């Protein structure tokens, strides 16, 4: 076998106590497309960031054309003819395509926009891109911006191209166009690494596939000799038993019925595509999906925080027996009905708590309207804070310590505790155990179970399939903003969910 264009040996990278990559090995040849497949958090992007010089590996070696190299900065990466196309485009909005492309180039030649624009056109012609070199970035569509990114690295003479989830933001037609260009580059002798979690893309585009799972390197297979189910198994792994307590749901009645809701982002991308499901009282409905498939938007739509373009959200009020359409209600009205969103977003403090305030003050954020006089009533929230600290075993010096100083698990407990204290009828929790240690995670699971037994309809967005399988009663799988399936958590398998997760929009089984 010829020397690989780029080869990684035993690459390891940690962030604090979190291991993002452990002993990863992979190689790409000239004129080859390699897919790197893995769930979110499996360390794909971190790995590629090390090749492109954003991060530096803790240990391990990188070889280019058989020679060991050290890549300490993006500039080093350019020098080794490595170009990365990031998921979030790194473009300056108020610059033209050409200006962005030549940005940062050390010019021995004269600075000449016209000449550069001509060269940009040559490159786009060669590989079949379609781009106006003088168009401003802020006037471009997402697909055009991506094209600029790709030309940017080609302009610098990159031979090794890394694309981080390039199709996540593209329509199927644009994706097809991109693939055509990528194949043409491969035939031109370039090495292409594409990061993705969409199985059908892997199968249709790449020559070989390397799989990562939770930072570990699982293996590499020839695309021609593999199948969807083999790849899924490599990606999600074997089922691990966690022994999470799960009671049988009882007295289930429909609590929340979501009918065909659609949401479109400001850029015109469909966030939610005809999503329908029913959440029942006394059960935990899990939501599984690759991060960013629309989970956040779905919960926000129910909570009244996300504009819904069409569809209905019907709430069966257990107190009055009436049906309310949440779509016409303000977030506060929705909250008062008992629909509670204990949102634990990427940034825990971002949406739920104010970091510089103590627990008492954070309790008041949700109850300040209850006060009767103009002055704050601190007694009730203080008692609640004390109760949460003792019930949920929050480790804190006191109720007035800024929550910013608490550990992640304790912050989460405060957040969930506050929402539960309001005696909700629907409790939505997104990633409530992200970043928590095992004990804290089980405490949160128990809290959710307790709510379920009280007849609350619990909606749990999780990322660990093992947890979803053991905690939930039913699991709704969401892929690219569409519901790809609703399965019984007691009978389904990890592979089935894994397959459903990787199904994109418009693909029917």
């Amino acid at each position, binding site marked *: 076998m010829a020397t690989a264009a780029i080869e990684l040996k035993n690459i390891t990278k940690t962030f604090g106590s979190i291991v993002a990559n452990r002993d990863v090995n992979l190689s790409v040849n000239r004129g080859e497309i390699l897919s790197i497949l893995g769930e979110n958090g499996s360390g794909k992007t971190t790995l590629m960031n090390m090749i492109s010089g954003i991060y530096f590996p803790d240990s391990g070696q990188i070889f280019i054309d058989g020679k060991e190299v050290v890549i300490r900065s993006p500039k080093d990466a350019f020098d080794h003819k490595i170009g990365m196309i990031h998921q979030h485009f*790194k473009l300056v*909005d108020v610059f033209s395509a050409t*200006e962005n492309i030549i*940005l*940062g180039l050390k010019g021995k030649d004269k600075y000449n926009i016209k000449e550069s624009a001509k060269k940009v056109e040559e490159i786009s012609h060669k590989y079949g891109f379609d781009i106006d070199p003088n168009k401003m970035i802020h006037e471009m569509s997402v697909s055009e911006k991506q094209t600029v990114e790709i030309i940017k690295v080609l302009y610098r003479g990159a031979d090794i191209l890394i694309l981080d989830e390039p199709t996540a933001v593209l329509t199927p037609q644009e994706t097809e166009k991109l693939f055509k260009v990528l194949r043409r580059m491969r035939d031109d002798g370039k090495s292409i690494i594409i990061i993705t979690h969409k199985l059908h893309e892997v199968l249709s585009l790449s020559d070989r596939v390397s799989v990562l799972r939770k930072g570990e390197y699982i293996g590499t297979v020839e695309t021609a000799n593999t199948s969807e189910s083999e790849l899924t198994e490599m990606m999600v792994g074997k089922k691990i038993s966690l022994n999470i307590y799960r009671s049988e749901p009882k007295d289930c009645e429909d609590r929340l019925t979501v009918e065909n809701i659609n949401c479109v982002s400001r850029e015109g991308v469909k966030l939610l595509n005809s999503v329908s499901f029913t959440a029942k009282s006394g059960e935990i409905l899990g939501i599984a999906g690759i991060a960013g498939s629309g989970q956040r938007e779905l919960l926000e739509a129910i909570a009244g925080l996300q504009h819904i373009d069409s569809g209905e959200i019907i709430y069966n009020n257990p107190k009055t027996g009436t049906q309310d359409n949440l779509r016409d209600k303000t977030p506060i009205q929705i909250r008062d009905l008992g629909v509670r969103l204990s949102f634990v977003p990427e940034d825990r403090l971002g949406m739920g708590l104010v970091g510089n305030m103590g627990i008492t003050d954070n309790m008041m954020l949700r109850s300040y309207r209850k006060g009767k006089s103009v002055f704050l009533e601190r007694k009730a929230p203080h008692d609640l804070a004390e109760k949460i600290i003792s019930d949920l075993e929050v480790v804190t010096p006191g109720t007035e310590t800024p929550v910013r100083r608490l550990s992640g698990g304790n912050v989460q407990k405060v957040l969930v505790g506050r929402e539960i204290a309001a005696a909700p009828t629907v409790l939505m929790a997104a990633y409530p155990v992200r970043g928590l240690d095992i004990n804290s995670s089980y405490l949160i699971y128990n809290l959710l179970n307790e709510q379920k037994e009280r007849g609350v309809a619990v909606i749990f967005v999780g990322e660990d399939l093992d947890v979803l399988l053991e905690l939930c009663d039913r699991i709704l799988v969401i892929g690219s903003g569409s519901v790809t399936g609703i399965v019984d958590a007691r009978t389904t398998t990890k592979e089935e969910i894994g397959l459903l997760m990787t199904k994109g929009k418009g693909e029917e089984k």
Partner: protein
Amino acid sequence: MLAFLVSAIRLGMVFLFGSTGEILTEKSGHLNLGTPGVMCVGASCGCFAEYLYLKSVGPFASPVLAILVAVVATFAGAALMGLLFSFLTVTLRANQNVTGLALTTLGIGISDYMIAKAGTSFGRASKYFTASLPFADDLGWFGELFFSHGVMIYLAIIVALVCSFVLSKTRVGLNLRSVGENPATADAAGINVSRYRYVATCIGSGISGLGGLTFIMDYLNGNWEYCIDAFGWLSIALVIFTVWKPNLAILGSIIFGALYIASSYITGVSFAGKELFKMLPYIVTIIVLIITSMRNKKKNQPPESLGLPYFREER
């Protein structure tokens, strides 16, 4: 009318220095609210150096050297303030707004101290600065308007034009603008964000400082009458007024100068009315802000990451 225009130009160039420097700084993503302090320090450093120079050479001062000494000292003093700002905000990651305001206070204090040492009268030095081209008098109103000014006036315009050229027509300018717009992108493109921010802020501050010197030596004819921080604030306002373009700032600064002195040239205005007139530049700035944000044209917006810090390995 002619006197009014000439006066407007002379005062305007104070703003022009101030805002050209600030534009350069802001293009790198630094909102330096310390500009009033920077201008004070610049002016007082220039005056102090001039005072020392004239004292040491006695009556045999060379006009060229006299100007050079003051300009270099001003630039250096003000650039040092810029260095302090960059050190605090880039290296120590302090908040830019707080740092800027602190530098303003500090700068006023420093300049008060230095002026207390050097005295407030620089009439002799001012003569070198206000010396006009010899043929200005022969050209009537045309000469009066265009050639009667001191050296700093022309320097201001040259500096603004050079900055405009560098920003829009060179690789360095492209890189600098990208740092202010989107430092992560610039970093990924291999541009040293910290270095660009440091250098742009130091040079920018140096240029701003020259505005202070111009005000004392040219506009006030060498009499340090009152502190000049008000002109720093106006310079920052002028940056917005000219939508971050140094070439537009040339025109804008003259308009600001005219608005600022208008009250003195209009008869029959009460004292309170005059103070109202002095508000005009600020009011115009607010109007420009309203118009540019309403039209929401990407081209006329402030640098996108203005005032924001940048650290690379954040996750």
